[in-house]
């Protein structure tokens, strides 16, 4: 394969990763605040369908994205309301919503399947897009990709460098301590859940109006992406940079599975298409393996040098969830 083709492919990876980045960033914010929004998978489908229909019928791309974000925000609001106000299980509610919104998107979207809709145009950034390699890789995309890259850094900056970000870290870690430091825990959790949901909702139209333009119902190929975003949130150790890196890695795997297809004629294409999913699960295993009892026991049996070396690597990979994740908090 020629260098040019590889470069074009890699630029495609950056574009493909855009919606996954949105969803992962959104879920990262939500979970940092201590709420698990499990509905991501269905939310992406419903907002992809809703955004597509809105843009198709009104002709306004803007409206398409707005509708997608509103859908994401609304589903997240349901999760927040049932868990934070009604004190129901976040996991149960989120899971039911994930299934419900998925089926709802297939049902409501049925009349629009296969229609030709508007598509976000590519806008090379003048000047920057002429830089060799980097220009094509990063500066020859549609505005959403630029937005996603900017958002990675904004989210990271917000979480780690700002005053509200410090409290956000605390919200998921120890809500009681955040409360003692003046945070309105319930309100803030509500806000971050809805905000995170809106980012997830942005992922949908990013597919249906850009990356995989159109709506094809059950064969849209979007089912499963949301679960990947949830896995990436964990893989990313709730750090926006690491989560986004995971999103690019996932897109890269997807692209590679297409690239190797011609060279592996014996392997059914379906196998290659779904290969990135089990690979993601494997990476997830890797980050948690150091926490397991059997790993600790196995390590204890090794000679000291090997043991120290392996445990150092495992520690670097290892992630620990926010201690208050998914837990209710009462102010009294």
């Amino acid at each position, binding site marked *: 394969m020629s260098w040019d083709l590889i470069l074009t492919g890699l630029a495609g990876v950056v574009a493909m990763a855009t919606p996954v980045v949105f969803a992962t960033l959104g879920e990262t914010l939500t979970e940092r605040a201590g709420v698990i929004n499990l509905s991501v998978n269905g939310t992406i489908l419903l907002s992809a369908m809703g955004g597509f229909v809105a843009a198709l019928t009104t002709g306004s791309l803007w409206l398409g994205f707005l509708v997608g974000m509103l859908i994401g925000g609304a589903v997240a609001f349901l999760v927040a309301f049932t868990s934070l106000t009604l004190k129901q299980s976040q996991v149960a509610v989120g899971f039911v919503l994930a299934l419900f919104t998925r089926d709802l998107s297939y049902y409501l979207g049925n009349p629009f399947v296969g229609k030709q809709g508007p598509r976000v145009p590519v806008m090379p950034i003048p000047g920057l897009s002429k830089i060799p390699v980097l220009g094509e890789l990063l500066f020859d995309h549609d505005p959403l990709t630029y937005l996603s890259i900017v958002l990675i850094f904004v989210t990271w900056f917000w979480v780690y460098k700002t005053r509200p970000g410090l409290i956000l870290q605390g919200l998921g870690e120890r809500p*009681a301590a955040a409360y003692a430091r003046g945070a309105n825990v319930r309100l803030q959790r509500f806000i971050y859940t809805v905000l995170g949901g809106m980012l997830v909702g942005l992922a949908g139209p990013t597919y249906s109006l850009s990356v995989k333009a159109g709506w094809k119902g059950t064969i849209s190929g979007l089912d499963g992406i949301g679960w990947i975003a949830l896995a990436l949130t964990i893989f990313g150790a709730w750090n926006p940079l690491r989560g986004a890196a995971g999103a690019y890695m996932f897109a890269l795997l997807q692209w590679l599975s297409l690239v190797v297809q011609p060279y592996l004629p014996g392997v059914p294409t379906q196998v290659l298409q779904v290969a990135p999913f089990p690979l993601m699960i494997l990476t997830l295993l890797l980050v948690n393996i150091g926490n397991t009892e059997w790993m600790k026991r196995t390590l204890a049996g090794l000679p000291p040098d090997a043991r120290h070396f392996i445990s150092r690597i495992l*520690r670097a990979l290892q992630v620990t969830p926010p201690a208050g994740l998914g837990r209710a908090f009462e102010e009294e």
Partner: protein
Amino acid sequence: MQVELRDIHKFFGPVHANRGITLTIPAGTIQGLLGENGAGKSTLMKILSGFIRPDRGEIRLDGRPVSFRSPADALRQGIGMLHQDPLDFPPMRVLDNFVAGSPGGLLPDKEDARQALLSISQQFGFSLDPDAYVDTLTVGERQQLEIVRLLWLGARVLIFDEPTTGISAQQREKLFAALRRLADEGRTIIFVTHKLEEVQALCHRVAVLRSGELVGEAQAPYDLDRLVEMMFGKVITVGRAEPVPLGEPVLELRDLAVEDHRLHIRGVTLDIRAGEVIGLAGMEGSGQRRLLRAAAGLIRPTGGTVRFLGQDMTGRPYLDFHKAGATYIPADRMTEGLFPDLTIAEHVALAREQTGFLLNAEQMRAWAQEAIENFSIRGRPETPARALSGGNQQRLLLALMRPDLRLIFMEHPTRGLDLESALWIWRKLKDRCRKGTAIFFMSSDLEELLNYSDRVLVFFGGRVSRPLPAEELDVERLGQLIGGYGFDRVANDAITEPQTEGKAA
């Protein structure tokens, strides 16, 4: 700042936790607050620091009536509280913990905060590294961080809820020195504790709560017997238990080694005989817990052998130890020992030998009632474990132990418990010893270690002492050893070298 509490009432459902408490604390004093478990001390302090609202009553600061909407609001008005379990963010850095929640714009001025952190720490002789992660600090250091943070935010009244549980003797001295200094500067200190000797050493005055009521006040110097009587409503005598005859070895450790990423402890050789009590002493995190866990099969030792009841159990999981007649009672009763949402009856039913598949409600109630009576648990069969006070949780854990145990592993058997509960727990444990059960425990309470152990192992700087007979030690000597003073001569690796009996420095 002078603090006045007037006729404070607080109900939690049917529980009347504070019943009309009126107390005035002058500025510049260290006010002790004593009371048994469940007396209502924490409730009163949480009301004063804005965590919970009183159902009735008034708070006045320097004569001015105030009300607090939240803890942050209370802090703005000058009242800061250190909770027993420091309310901080363990995975974050010291500096970020320090800054989080401070007023100001979007971007915190970290340089400024760093300077403030360092200069306030320095005033009190604390050495806090702003870039360290809080989960690498000891409980004592986390307290220091909270103190510095609250002072930085302008606290003029500081409340300490049982601050000395889980910190070393040295850290306690440092803490006391800091408190005295704060009081000298005119700040008001409220010090909640169970321990009379701390009141005696530190507090200018003391108030005693019992069952939600203020039953008395006293000023230094104190009549300790009278304080005990006020706390419990009766006279309590601390008698030394009579010696228990020892039997066959129950647990035999040979050259046992444990390690984590910092510690490498090796060469622990010890026989624990039936009826014997072995205590592990040392600063928090010196390896006691790992050794205890390794001896119980909860973690795998990195070397050496463990024999339990004559059988080689090295590397076998805890479940096998448990089947053979050992049990492990962790310090974190609520997360590792009990199920917070299960009731007493359910716990008791779970602990019994299962006969049928279905639970028999009548039978469960009867068992629970029996446990509640035999172990004086304050609760009903349908009370969930999380609603029990610390002392009652520990009583429940004891009630759940099988009658035929040969060995009990315990972390901090009486941490957080009042004098009466602590005595009671040990009376029950010693009854077991008399029937041939051995006890292997760790504690940071020197009195407890000396009063109840037959032999003590001291941990210091990644090393262990050889087993030291408790009657050859006293509180002062043990405190020194824990701090490393004179440790070399008792270390377990010292015996292999030629004994050059140096002079006690």
